């Protein structure tokens, strides 16, 4: 485990609890580090992206891994510069595929080497990243709930040919 202890100069004011071990991992060593865990019998538990752009100009990525036998959670914390892509670990853990897509669509954080980095939960073509702290929602559309309101224009269904 010490082999992956590639610590980066990251702040220490964010204590992590709920894991047997939480360590900072440099983005460049992420794939290597997760492979060590994969071979040690860990399963992919979760991946979280935290927007720390305002304070530090980075995203904090938190990967947690766990073991079935004698559960001991290992958390990887990655201090990822907002502009640089993070190496994808979807080749190591299949679960990372969807999680990375989610981080990409919600934060705009790119992952290098991802086989299919596209929208997962948001509609295809969404151009905003809603979980960014800088995101402000467009005003909610108003609705007309009166029963006599004319039906909305129905362009999607042209009249059938008879």
């Amino acid at each position: 485990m010490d082999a992956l202890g590639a610590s980066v100069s990251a702040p220490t004011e964010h204590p992590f609890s709920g894991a047997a071990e939480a360590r900072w991992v440099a983005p460049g060593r992420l794939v290597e580090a997760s492979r060590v865990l994969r071979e040690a019998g860990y399963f992919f538990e979760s991946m979280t992206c935290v927007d720390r752009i305002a304070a530090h100009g980075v995203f904090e990525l938190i990967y947690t891994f766990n073991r079935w036998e004698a559960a001991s959670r290992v958390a990887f914390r990655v201090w990822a510069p907002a502009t640089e892509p993070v190496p994808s670990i979807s080749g190591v853990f299949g679960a990372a595929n969807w999680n990375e897509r989610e981080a990409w669509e919600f934060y705009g954080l790119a992952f290098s080497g991802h086989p299919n980095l596209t929208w997962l939960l948001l509609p295809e073509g969404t151009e905003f990243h809603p979980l960014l702290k800088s995101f402000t929602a467009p005003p909610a559309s108003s609705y007309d709930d009166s029963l006599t309101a004319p039906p909305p224009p129905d362009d999607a269904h042209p009249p059938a040919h008879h």
Partner: protein
Amino acid sequence: MRTHPPTTDPLDTYTLNMGPQHPSTHGVLRLLLTLRGEEIVTAEPVIGYSHRAHEKMAENRTYAQFLPNTSRQDYLSGMIYNFAWVEAVEKMAGIPVPERALVARVILAEFNRIASHLLWIGAFLLDLGAPTPFLYCWDDREAILFLLESVTGSRLTYASGRFGGLARDLDADFPRRAREVIAKLRARWPEYDRLIEDNVIFRNRAIGVGVLTRDQCRSYGVTGPTLRGSGVPYDVRKAEPYGAYPRFEFDIPTRPEGDVFARYWVRVQEMRQSVRIIEQALDQLPGGPFLEPGSIGVKKRLKLPVGTQYYAVESARGHYGILLVSEGGAEPYRAKFRTPSYPNLAVLTEAMPGTLVADAVAILGSTDLVMPEVDR
């Protein structure tokens, strides 16, 4: 089953869009199937149809205000999710919980787990084309829902957890009614075995279908009954005991085959273990307050210390994790919900190829997906 080598030759195969409106996709899942005849070549889940941005909502609400959201992630075992959020916040804020509330939470959560499994059995058999077990399961489930309603006032989307206890106490008559419900469940089990588990058609549809290997489960982070059906005795209640669970005896039912039948069997056995837990908990139910005296409950604005915390519980579908990032404010800085259905669905891309359309329905059903939980 597979009779030809896999191919994606466009002339040889065609695409079937299963869902998002389809009787067996349990909500709004869309499966993009590439088929050769009836054989599945590739299966790609398309999700997000019921994305309600729970994680964004969490960032804009106080810890108490987020309570009603929790049970809407997985509306079939909402109690467990509700308590998970409460416990995660309690743990991070260091709020003490009275004994009675701890045990009561276990009782309510386990009843909710049984209700969830019952609904699953019914819906799964419906997927396999047997409509009658569904109604029997609903009869049993109704008894549980009525019991839970008598405590929480709600039938499905509970918001009954409070930081430091519960919103309402279990009344004096509750243990008697709970035991009545348990007796009703017990009486029905042999019937389920005879009607479903022994049935030759069911066995043929379920045995050997949709095998998930241990390695696939590890790679995708599959948990819950789906994982235990692949022979792995992993249960958060045992692996990282929380709440009052350490004081109760129960087993983790597992089955090595990893097929649809194993997942069915595990869930059926799990209901029995839940009943075991509930009976012990009813026996040990302590008196005293149900909400810590002088506790902040929801009345005072709660602020959590700066830090990041991961908290996990065992929901009816598996490992439910809450990663909570606090910057010291009254609202979470970030809340990530690691819902069990999400990896359990992702793994199907690997489990489905080579099976038939009918099997796809069985496999999909067997993983017990709740789509709002996947989409959050």
